[in-house]
């Protein structure tokens, strides 16, 4: 066991998979010589050479299409988008090609699209977004978002080994802030399985990504007042592990759905709907959602803090539900 950061865990997964499987290779802007905008692939060029660590032009649609082609030909490309905000530049390749190729022609596309997502570090409107819901809406794509180093590594390995296109959202704010012991031996975190991060009987918070940590912080505060808050980390956003969060809500009778993405049409709406449909008779209070305000993410620190959800906002929402 060694203590690693969330970012190091991602690097480890990539390195181990490239050593294990010669068909795994990387593409992306500045990932080679520069080692990646966030240094995830630092040292990779030296170890694996320029045929497996490919610097691309700033042309997302083009290199995404190239990666899909390579995947069809038997490779397992991992594409780094410098920011998840720029998934939209390759939207057509991801949504109309990668997602539908197997359905349409029976040809698997085992590609991983990595996207550093999320705000909280004054990145402004083009470098702070959480666009996962654009893709959870598309059949044929898997979408994951780890919240811890252990999961970052295990989920990335599972994504690389999966025969479907997987969007892998890694939250920038967690890169160097979150660290933990990660086993040195081989393991995977299976796609499609959520995890209970904290047990409680009074309220379920269903969340993922960076908001898992904000929710844990809120739960700590509330625990001092005697409230036992359960936290469900979805980990995989498509396909959703309904059974996990439904069991939690049936136990507690109260649900708070939290994500950093914008509230309107966010994944939280889907989760809330499933709870309303399938746990209705257990509900003791309305299902409440917390997400970012429906405005572009501001550059101004004061405004960004006002727009994004936080531990304090989650605590307030949880308190409202607990007192309902």
């Amino acid at each position, binding site marked *: 066991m060694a203590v690693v950061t969330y970012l190091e865990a991602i690097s480890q997964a990539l390195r181990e998979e490239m050593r294990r499987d010669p068909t795994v290779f990387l593409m992306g802007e500045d990932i080679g010589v520069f080692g990646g905008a966030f240094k995830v692939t630092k040292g990779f060029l030296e170890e694996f050479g320029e045929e497996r660590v490919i610097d691309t032009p700033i042309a997302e649609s083009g290199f995404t299409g190239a990666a899909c082609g390579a995947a069809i030909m038997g490779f397992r490309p991992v594409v780094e988008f410098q920011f998840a905000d720029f998934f939209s530049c390759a939207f057509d390749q991801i949504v109309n090609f990668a997602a539908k190729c197997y359905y349409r022609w029976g040809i698997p596309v085992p590609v991983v699209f990595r996207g550093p997502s999320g705000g909280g570090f004054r990145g402004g409107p083009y470098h702070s977004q959480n666009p996962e819901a654009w893709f959870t809406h598309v059949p044929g794509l898997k979408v994951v978002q780890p919240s811890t180093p252990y999961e970052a590594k295990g989920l990335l390995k599972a994504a690389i080994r999966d025969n479907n296109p997987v969007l892998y959202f890694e939250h920038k704010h967690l890169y160097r802030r979150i660290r933990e012991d990660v086993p040195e031996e081989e393991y995977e975190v299976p796609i499609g399985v959520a995890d209970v991060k904290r047990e409680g009987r009074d309220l379920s918070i269903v969340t993922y990504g960076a908001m898992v940590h904000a929710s844990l912080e809120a739960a700590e505060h509330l625990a001092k007042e005697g409230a036992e808050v359960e936290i469900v980390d979805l980990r995989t956003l498509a396909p959703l592990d309904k059974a996990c969060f439904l069991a939690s809500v049936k136990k507690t*009778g109260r649900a708070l759905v939290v994500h950093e993405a914008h509230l309107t049409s966010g994944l939280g709406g889907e989760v809330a709907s499933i709870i309303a449909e399938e746990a209705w*008779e*257990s*509900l*003791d*209070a309305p299902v*409440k959602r917390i997400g970012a305000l429906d405005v572009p993410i501001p550059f101004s620190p004061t405004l960004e803090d006002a727009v994004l959800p936080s531990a304090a906002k989650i605590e*307030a929402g949880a308190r409202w539900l607990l007192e*309902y």
Partner: protein
Amino acid sequence: MPQMGESLSEGTITKWLKKPGERIERDEPLFEITTDKVDTEVPAPVSGILERILVNEGVTVGVGTTVAEIGDGAVAATTASPPPAAGAGHFRSSHEPTTFQRRGAQPPAAPAPAASSSGEKRGQLSPAVLSLAAESRLDIQELLEIPGSGAGGRISRRDVERYLRERPVRRESPAPLQRAPEGPPSHYLYQPEPGDKLVSMSPMRKQIAEHMIWSQQISAQVTSFTECDMHRIVRYRDENRARFEETEGVPLTFLPFVAEATVKALKEFPIFNASVVGDQIALKKHIHLGVAVALEEGLIVPVVANADEMNFVGLARAIHRLADAARSRRLTPADVRGATFTITNPGMFGGLTGTPMIAQPQVAILGLGAVAKKPVVVDDAIAIRPIMVLALTFDHRIIDGATGFQFLESIRRHLEEFEI
């Protein structure tokens, strides 16, 4: 929903004649309703703007339910909430309707301090609370008495759990002799089989069913019979039919003859024009004669008001007008209200006689059989006479057999000695 007769508890809105936002004047028709007794238009009680319709077409609601709001137009259209869909009205509980209203539970953006006005959310019961109450067989009254710890006194699932843990063990309910209120044992009930055609009861049918069951339960009904020789009336009717219709404008039927004889008998025996009020008997000042009219979908009983003040022609006209209105569904609520005694005439469909049931809260009902020729003994000779069997059902709580026979005898005498 207006009261359309004292026995009515609900009505169905069939049509709204105004849309929200439209102006309406006092007494202008606002909506149409159907009840088991009448179909009618309901006029607006005040002038103003129809701001909100609260009950949709096709929905049945209890008497006294607010079905729309008329105001000065200050309510913006955007605040209008959609009215309940058809059928929703059937989910009304018999409890205080306001107890279960759920409104305005919008989560505030920021955390709110505990609701300021206590009782505000007390009656709001979540699905979890209702599920738990059902599982634990808590009745609604007991449930509502549980102290609520939620915002505004709302009862939470945890409150119910605590109550169930802490409440004293309940006594086994005694009353082994009491009849189960839920309904008859299942072996008296029919389970539909494949091939059966199931037809829904109309509101009128359901109301009649309920009324008749109650009538049987709350009064002691016995029936007496007599035969009445109708030859004078038949002869008079045959001779005057055409002239009467020409001069009076209504056909000459047997019914007004019986009505007149009955009114005379009721004046002699006021106990038949009465109602039971606790341990008292209310003898009524006026005679309002209910006349049952068979319709395709059931039975309706329009009322000849103040029949005690009418002569024969007046009775004939009133009966004709009401029967006509009943068949063309133009009866007004006032037309079906307040009968003090009822005559029913199934004899017009043939048949010897029957045992009619009392329309509550009256105490007697007269049933007429068919007028049919029969051999009878007249002055020790056998004659052929048109005979009608009269059946009188009366409430034995306040009327004994002797009085019943005397009353029947009085009607018979008035009919047989008819003179105009």
